[in-house]
């Protein structure tokens, strides 16, 4: 039993953190809103240079060959800066899918992902829309129990605008006659595993978003004065933020456990992912509610950066399985007779 990350995992996280916090300033995010694609190919290449796009790509294909557990803290850091680039989708969902499909498709695309020459994106149809389909060099698309590997000229896109200007969402329609790479019984386990990884990615980003909003609120309330003192000295304000700290503290371990279960192929991984997704998205939603409250009217503006993180948190709560669907999975596992419950049933 060892519920800690290795020194290597933490060093990698710290390096990613330094890079992301240094590069992804909110000004850069705001600028991306005004571009056509909302995405930045130069940034994608930078991410590749420090090894982030290839984290999960097998070493044989030029990557680092790491797993969900190695990546989960990196996804958290992506959330902290509200990274617009589809790194989490690519590394945590699309690449493992490609690896599982194997063959020429994997051999062709994986080295390009590791090198930062291509973005591979997964959209597995549990959400009606696919994020970042417009910048996918290869789109792994699940529909009707089939898995498609689509190149840009093989599908049509219709954009649906999100409250979060960083999010680019599309309805995908494969061209008539395009064949699936896998179907039925072959596609099913891959689509299911991809879904779990997507949900884990959301959960990990939600942790980062919650932490960011908490940090911003602590900072803001230390500076803003009313009644002749910093508003952060008022107990009502303190307790709002303490509640966020508690929620965050008890959302982390479920997310890490879910990552570990996925990496180890634990059959209970779906239950663990559902818990992680609910806990982390709840913590992020609470962070949003409390943060806007302690910011006062400033928090309700477009100009103050808080909304960048709030909106992403709100959006993630409904992505890769909304709360109702994850809760339904838990209910099935827990409320039926014979479920392992109680002391000693956790591991």
């Amino acid at each position, binding site marked *: 039993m*060892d519920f800690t990350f290795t020194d290597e995992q933490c060093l990698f996280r710290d390096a990613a953190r330094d890079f992301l916090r240094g590069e992804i300033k909110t000004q850069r995010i705001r600028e991306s809103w005004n571009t056509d694609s909302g995405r930045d190919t130069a940034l994608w290449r930078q991410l590749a240079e420090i090894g982030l796009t290839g984290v999960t790509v097998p070493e044989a294909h030029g990557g680092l060959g790491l797993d969900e557990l190695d990546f989960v803290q990196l996804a958290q850091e992506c959330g902290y800066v509200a990274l617009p680039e589809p790194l989490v989708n690519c590394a945590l969902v699309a690449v493992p899918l490609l690896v599982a499909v194997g063959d020429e498709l994997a051999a062709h695309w994986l080295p390009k992902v590791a090198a930062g020459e291509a973005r591979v994106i997964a959209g597995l149809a549990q959400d009606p829309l696919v994020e970042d389909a417009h910048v996918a060099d290869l789109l792994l698309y699940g529909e009707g129990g089939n898995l498609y590997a689509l190149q840009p000229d093989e599908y049509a896109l219709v954009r649906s605008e999100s409250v979060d200007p960083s999010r680019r969402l599309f309805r995908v329609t494969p061209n008539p006659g395009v064949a699936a790479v896998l179907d039925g019984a072959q596609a099913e386990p891959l689509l299911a595993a991809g879904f779990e990884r997507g949900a884990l990615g959301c959960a990990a980003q939600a942790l980062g978003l919650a932490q960011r909003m908490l940090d911003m609120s602590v900072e803001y309330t230390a500076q803003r004065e009313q009644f002749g003192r910093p508003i952060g000295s008022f107990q009502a304000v303190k307790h709002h933020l303490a509640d966020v700290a508690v929620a965050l503290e008890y959302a982390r371990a479920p997310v890490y456990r879910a990552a570990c279960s996925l990496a180890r192929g634990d059959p209970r991984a779906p239950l663990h992912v559902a818990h992680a997704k609910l806990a982390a998205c709840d913590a992020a939603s609470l962070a949003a509610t409390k943060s806007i409250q302690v910011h006062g009217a400033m928090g309700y503006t477009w100009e103050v950066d808080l909304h960048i993180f709030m909106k992403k948190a709100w959006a993630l709560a409904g992505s890769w399985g909304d709360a109702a669907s994850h809760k339904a999975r838990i209910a099935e596992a827990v*409320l039926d007779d014979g479920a392992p419950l109680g002391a*000693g049933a956790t591991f």
Partner: protein
Amino acid sequence: MQLDYTEEQQAFRAEARQWLAAHVPAEPLPSYDTEEGFQRHREWEAVLHRGRWTMVTWPGDLGGRGSSLVEWLIFEEEYYRAGAPKRVNMNGICLLGPTLMEYGSEAQKARILPKMASGEEIWAQAWSEPNAGSDMAAIRSRAARQGDTYVINGQKIWSTRAVWADWCFGMFRTDPDSQRHHGLTFILVPLDTPGVTVRPIPQLDGLPGFAEIFFDDVEVPVANRLGEEGAGWRVAMATAGFERGLMLRAPARFQETARRLVELYRENRASADRDPAIRDAVLRAYLDAEAYCLATYQTACRLDQGGKIGPESSTNKIFWSELDQAMCGTAMRILGARAELLPHAPAAAGVGTWLDDFLFAQSGPIYAGSNEIQRNIIAERMLGMPR
């Protein structure tokens, strides 16, 4: 990260399970807030001691097993699974014991710890006073130094299990001119010392679970002091410190409550489902108990590897006490019209121990530092917000 038990850990679990199966009383003991129940629980502590299970993390020469915190968590899981009796000497083994190991003299350790481990001496905490509750630095009870003796005068209140306990430990003002947390000293007092009067206070369930303690020229030797004179605050903070906080409420306890809640829901599903909020609360209970377990294992692993605990540990008191309150409240809602019935009432079939659990859960957010005080600590020490 490796979330499987090692072979040694599995063997440890098997040994604990086997021993508990052979020794846990078949019938639940009477409440330890009754005279007979207290005695029976004291005897149970002796049984545990003979099996070397009193406190598995303690070193072997004190009757422990030198276990890691993870093993302690495993033991607690088996303990709660087995439905074993409540621990009547919790204040001794979880709070005073570790403090003694850190601050006690060799003579004090040798004199106190073995009898604490065997249940021969049961300990009560005596911090609170009528005017020093959340504001513990307002303590006024005096301990005046006279040669090798302290002469204690004053009053303590809310002292859990003091009615039948043998000793109490707490803080007294040794410097009459001192203010706040200065000039306080940590002193151990045998409750049978002349001048000590213990007045039971009935709790919500009517039983005298705590007591007032009056000190009227009570003389105790200076050797009963823990740490330096005037350093009581620092020693006391160690008692309140995290590892003890961690040990006070093992996740197993709440996971068993969550399990019982799921079972209660299943038994009463048809009526419970008339209110969809109940089902939601049951799921929440399961998840939060699980989260508490996961976070505790994470912390235990970190500490076992030599890590240090930070102020983030204040989140745990809030989390478990509010979880417990929510779980018991949900059980009451499921029981509906039966919820108010005492367990022996003729119409009380199927109510189990929920009413008692519910009543006690109301005190969780108050004792051991109220949750408002914990939130202040989180805001100021963990988040660094201005005072």
